[in-house]
């Protein structure tokens, strides 16, 4: 076993153990904090995959914003959520069964996938991934602008649509989160 495999196994074990805690912790705030552990574990996996931009984005957006929003929401609904009462086994057993079946199905797909045993190709030495990502997201010719080739997949439209989606989410979420009285006042 190489050092890299050891690192991967440590990160994977940490991520999965935290994930189990997320779905089993009684106190919701602890579940949210375990979610942060999962998110950091996933960030370590991104680092192993050499996707630098996504490592920092994972920490900035997921841990810095989404997890904080979760904690705020849990504290806003404190009266009910200090302890999440365990659901009955009639609910947990089918849930467990369904996830187990899904796991089996996904594992089957992975095992049947012809490229599953593949090892990673070497990173292109002069690839500036963030720069290329910017070109892919914003140039009509895609990463072509970065790489100097003729054509590449371009994500201009999805990127712009994503920003519209975020605006819509902002407006909708604000509408839902403010009370009627507050809305009438303004």
């Amino acid at each position, binding site marked *: 076993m190489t050092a890299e495999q050891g690192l991967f196994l440590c990160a994977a074990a940490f991520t999965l153990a935290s994930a189990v805690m997320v779905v089993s912790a009684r106190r919701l705030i602890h579940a949210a904090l375990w979610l942060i552990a999962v998110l950091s574990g996933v960030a370590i996996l991104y680092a192993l995959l050499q996707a630098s931009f996504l490592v920092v984005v994972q920490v900035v957006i997921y841990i810095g914003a989404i997890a904080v929003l979760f904690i705020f*929401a849990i504290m806003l609904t404190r009266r009910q959520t200090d302890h999440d009462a365990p659901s009955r086994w009639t609910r947990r057993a089918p849930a467990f069964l369904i996830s187990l079946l899904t796991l089996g199905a996904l594992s089957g797909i992975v095992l049947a996938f012809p490229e599953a045993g593949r090892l990673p190709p070497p990173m292109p030495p002069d690839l500036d991934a*963030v720069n290329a*990502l*910017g070109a892919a997201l914003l140039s009509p010719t895609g990463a072509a602008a970065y790489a100097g080739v003729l054509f590449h997949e371009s994500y201009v439209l999805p990127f*712009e649509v994503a*920003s519209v989606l975020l605006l819509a989410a902002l407006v909708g979420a604000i509408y839902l989160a403010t009370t009627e009285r507050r809305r009438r*006042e303004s």
Partner: protein
Amino acid sequence: MRNEWLYIGVFLIVAIIVPLVPLGFAALVAPRKPNPTKRLTYECGVETVGDAWVQFKAQYYIFALVFLIFDVETVFLFPWALALNRLPMFAVTEGAVFLGILVAGLVYLWRKGLLEWQ
């Protein structure tokens, strides 16, 4: 070429160990004589009323919400800022449209009076 993230991983491990050293040392030498009064919640001598984990103002949540959306949009501008030198002028407009949508959100909040603290 060394792997920068490996170094940062090692650095973070050391960064966790270093604060633990004085804390461990303090745990060894510091006196420990707890009593129930000492371990009460500190509120300048007045006894605490009710649970301290109170429900708090919904307004904090609104600001966290606005922050989340703005954070996502601005972080995704970093690839744009980097690639700008290589891209045609079209990409600048592209980024400007993205920013314009961001500004639209800000204007909406402002007009709705949600940036006011009450």
